[in-house]
């Protein structure tokens, strides 16, 4: 009914472990991505969310753990966090948390823009994805370009309204460069490339 079409689902089947990297426009992004995963991978895949947003209240932590196994991370610049919610998190060491998941053979869903930006605009990426791929060079990343979900359920909207949207899943790739900054721009370009390829086919 909402009109989200998912292309390239078969790209998710090649790897047992991966990091999905996508642009972020809406809460629906996570749901759409998770719904396209096969079940045995789904239970081992964790969307990465900031504790500043999802850790605000106890019930939000509980809700996001129940439905989407979220890993909450605390970013350096996030200061005000509900102390009660903090108890549910292992530590404030964000990367350590994510590495633990990867070491267990689990997968991650990453939104390197860090927040839901303006629709159809790719903002600058945060460094976290670069650091992670630098430390785990054997893990494939899967670039995903999402368009239109920001219209269905934009930032701050209470309920979704049907519009057409698409989730385009790219081919799994390994990082080429070694520097964190270069990895970040490599990942970012791979996402932009999906959109370009689609427009000029």
């Amino acid at each position, binding site marked *: 009914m909402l*009109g989200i*079409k998912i*292309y390239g689902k078969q790209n998710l089947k090649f790897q047992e472990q991966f990091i999905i990297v996508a642009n972020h426009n809406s809460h629906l992004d996570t749901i759409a991505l998770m719904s396209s995963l096969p079940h045995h991978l789904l239970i081992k895949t964790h969307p990465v969310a900031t504790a500043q947003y999802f850790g605000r209240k106890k019930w939000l932590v509980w809700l996001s753990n129940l439905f989407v196994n979220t890993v909450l991370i605390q970013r350096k610049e996030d200061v005000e966090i509900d102390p009660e919610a903090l108890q549910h998190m292992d530590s404030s060491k964000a990367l350590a948390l994510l590495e633990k998941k990867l070491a267990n053979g689990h997968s991650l869903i990453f939104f390197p823009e860090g927040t839901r930006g303006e*629709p159809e605009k790719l903002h600058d990426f945060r460094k976290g994805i670069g650091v992670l791929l630098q430390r785990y060079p054997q893990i494939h990343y899967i670039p995903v370009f999402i368009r*239109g979900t920001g*219209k269905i359920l*934009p930032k701050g*909207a209470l309920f979704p*309204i*049907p*519009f*057409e*949207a*698409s989730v385009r899943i790219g081919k799994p790739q390994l990082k080429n460069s070694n520097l964190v900054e270069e990895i970040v721009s490599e990942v970012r370009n791979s996402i932009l490339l999906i959109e370009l390829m*689609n*427009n000029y*086919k």
Partner: protein
Amino acid sequence: MSPVLQMVVVILGVLVFATVLFWIWNKIQPSAQVSEMMLRTKSWWVMATIFVSAALVHPLISFAAFAFLSFVALRELASISKNARTVDRNVIFWAYLAIPVQYYFAYVGWHDAFIIFIPVFMFTLIPFLLVIQGHTQDIARSMSVIPTHLMLTVFSISHLAYLLSLPELKGFEVGGRGLLLFVVFLTEMNDVFQFTWGKLTGRHKIIEKVSPNKTWEGFIGGLLSTVAAAYFLRFLTPFSPIIALLCGLLIACSGFVGDIIVSAIKRDFGIKDTGTVIKGHGGILDRIDSLVISAPFFFYFVYLLYY
């Protein structure tokens, strides 16, 4: 055999014929237009299934199917529209709500409410809701664009559904089902006729900037074929031979007008360029473009003459 059953057989025959024809055509001389026609035949199979199930099972299936068709078309138009603003989101939600109301009026056959609901009520409600939101920048554009979307996708297509609610006429047992089959079948056939005649004999472009594939030869050839088809299919209607010919003329012209109007809109939104459609955006509008105008014109042609 009853006329409707005859028509079902004719439709199945034509569909099989068209499917095979375009399949072979695509093997011999593949082109973007032929694959477009193949896509069209595919959607006719879907439409035919809806009609046949409605004719043989229950008309309510048709109302639900047409309402859904309107919904998908409106969603597509609202998504590709570059004229609607992001703040119009909530108002577009109300536009969606108009669909069940309009189709309810069609289902119960309340004709007065049916014809005034969108052009009068929604035409007022949408600007009013926009005004309440308070963003006046570009508001006039949204005020005109959203009701136009509703007219093109909901008001027009709902006339197909209303055909099924028309009262019975003495001496015309086929009723609305026959009329529905008649208009949809002829409109779609008109597209095929125009396409085929244009391909075979087309030289002189009609409006190159909007639709580069439309030629006078295709248009006239399609028109004559459609008029002839209308003459032979008049057993589905209460028409006399003369009226049937006139009706064929009306369907051919209004189908053409709908086609180029939707083409022009899509061109404006940057979706259509030199006849190619971006993958994933071909969508439902391309399938129903001719019906957008021919459905209401045919409806009032019949309604004013016979009901």
